[in-house]
């Protein structure tokens, strides 16, 4: 939080001091003078205030979640609102862990995200390479099939997939959670678009050196495409971690639940006022990892999610 708070007040006070130092007593107050009074008022009102308001609207609820996760039931079940918790005690986190097997959920989420994302990224790389660099009839037809799959929302497939996966014994298993989401239209599409922009000369050089497809893929194409692959990987990690509807349906026992599903379980057992602190601790555990990943690598994530396509 200490990283979040200083940014909003600083620019405003900075602008204020500039105003005081420069003063605005010059008679012809023209708008194009950088430090004129009118211009400063305009900068603060039109520039900083909307920016600060927009940032606060996003930051405050998340800050509230974090603060509340440290509060005792007595600090929450009260009409006298206190903003800061009395102390940074972790009792809510402990309570969340003991009420439901939270460590298990966390581990399950970690496994599902790691395995699911790794396989998806590899499949996307292989398929995109094949579509761009390997000769094959009907490649355009295959590409259209992938494009159309991009537009099919996974939500309309939940019932048939449930029947299919439950039928082959995948209910309440981690592989049952992972398997149906492994086919990747989004990653394939994104990487294909990128591979198409690679200069043919680098591959020809490798081919002349006698490198086969496998070596050309891993030693030439992948190393020069790392930013695009990172984009696909991060977007995949985010969506695997947050995935809710499918794990919710295919698991009903705590042993195989992922974090978002486990939070639902926690919500059911802590549905009264005193449980909010525990629920906020749970929310922090599901939100914080992705928030940290986003803070560190947001350039790739934003690029991937606003790519001008419908993500699946």
């Amino acid at each position: 939080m200490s990283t979040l708070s200083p940014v909003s007040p600083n620019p405003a006070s900075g602008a204020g001091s500039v105003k005081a130092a420069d003063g605005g007593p010059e008679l012809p107050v023209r708008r194009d003078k950088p430090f004129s009074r009118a211009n400063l008022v305009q900068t603060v009102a039109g520039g900083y205030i909307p920016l600060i308001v927009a940032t606060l609207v996003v930051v405050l609820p998340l800050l509230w979640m974090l603060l509340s996760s440290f509060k005792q039931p007595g600090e929450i079940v009260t009409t006298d609102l206190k903003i800061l918790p009395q102390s940074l005690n972790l009792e809510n986190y402990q309570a969340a862990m003991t009420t439901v097997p939270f460590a298990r959920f966390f581990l399950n989420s970690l496994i599902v995200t790691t395995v699911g994302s790794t396989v998806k990224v590899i499949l996307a790389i292989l398929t995109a390479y094949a579509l761009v660099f390997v000769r094959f009839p009907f490649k355009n037809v295959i590409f259209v099939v992938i494009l159309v799959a991009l537009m099919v929302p996974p939500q309309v497939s939940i019932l048939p997939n449930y029947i299919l996966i439950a039928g082959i014994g995948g209910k309440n298993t981690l592989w049952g959670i992972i398997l149906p989401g492994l086919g990747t239209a989004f990653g394939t599409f994104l990487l294909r678009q990128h591979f198409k922009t690679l200069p043919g000369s680098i591959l020809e050089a490798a081919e002349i050196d006698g490198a086969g497809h496998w070596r050309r893929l891993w030693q030439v194409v992948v190393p020069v495409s790392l930013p695009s692959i990172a984009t696909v990987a991060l977007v995949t990690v985010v969506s695997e971690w947050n995935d809710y509807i499918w794990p919710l349906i295919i698991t009903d026992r705590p042993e195989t639940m992922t974090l978002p599903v486990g939070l639902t379980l926690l919500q059911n057992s802590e549905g009264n006022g005193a449980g909010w602190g525990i629920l906020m601790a749970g929310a922090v555990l599901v939100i914080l990892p992705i928030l940290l990943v986003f803070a560190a690598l947001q350039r790739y994530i934003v690029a991937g999610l606003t790519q001008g396509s419908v993500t699946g």
Partner: protein
Amino acid sequence: MTRQLTGSPAAPAKTVPSAQRRGRWSGRTRRDFFVFLALALPNLALIAVFTYLPLINNMYYSTLDWTLGSASATVVGLDNYVSFFTSSDAPHVLGTTLIFTVVTVGGSMVLGLLVALALNAKVRGTTFARSAVFAPYVLSGVGVGLVWLFIFDPGYGVLSWLLRGIGQQSPQWINDPQLALVMVIIVYIWKNLGYCAVVYLAGLQGLPKDVMEAASLDGANGFRRFMSMSVPLLSPTTFFLLITTMISSLQAFDLIRIMTPLGNGTNTLIYEAYLQAFGAYNRAGYSATISVVLFAILLIITVLQLRFVERKVHYS
């Protein structure tokens, strides 16, 4: 001289096609054929089984009277569709979906454009603000839903405290069907606003500077420039956002499920399909019917988008 010149290129020209024809199913080409299959087949098979097959199965299930988990089902033809469209379900579910979609799409686009304007200001701190505003879009809908459920809590939520401060009683957000929908819409807009803002920001930064400057020199003020220059010039961005946000609003599930577990006034198509099969009723056939209706709507939007984009290409 001339005979030599025309003669020499003609010879290879004759041999190249024949070499290609001969090599079509031999040597490198044949190896490429199998390399392609080895690389692409796993992914293509997964897409076929878990994306395409369910579409067909859904249509089949929608013709069944079938309780989920039961071994037997009766084929009832289009009865499920008839009962959906003739019962009170259709106006209720379609109406809720329409309200949710229109308000969330409109709300996040209008507010997203305003936030994009704020982010486009020539002041410091815009990079941080841009990240902050986008962040909720990548966060877990379940986590976000719980945080806001706490804020909206009529007894101990911040909102009830603020309302008490101005002498108001907090409404029962969850128990009142209409307020529950309002609550879910507010939170959905909060979560998705940043996506619209960042896409609009890219659009604003791509506006032709000379044109905007010319308008400014002609004496057009900020608001005038925005309404008669920026808004029309941004129309491709607006159209793109309209389609993408509409598609994702129609698929919104996480927030709705966590904030209103029993679907009180928030039964959109996707949520009703879920509740019918996996809620209290176990009506698999009926659920599949609603999924098919949802898919049909999404298909129409996608087709409209493709047609429109084709037409748009001629302008640019």
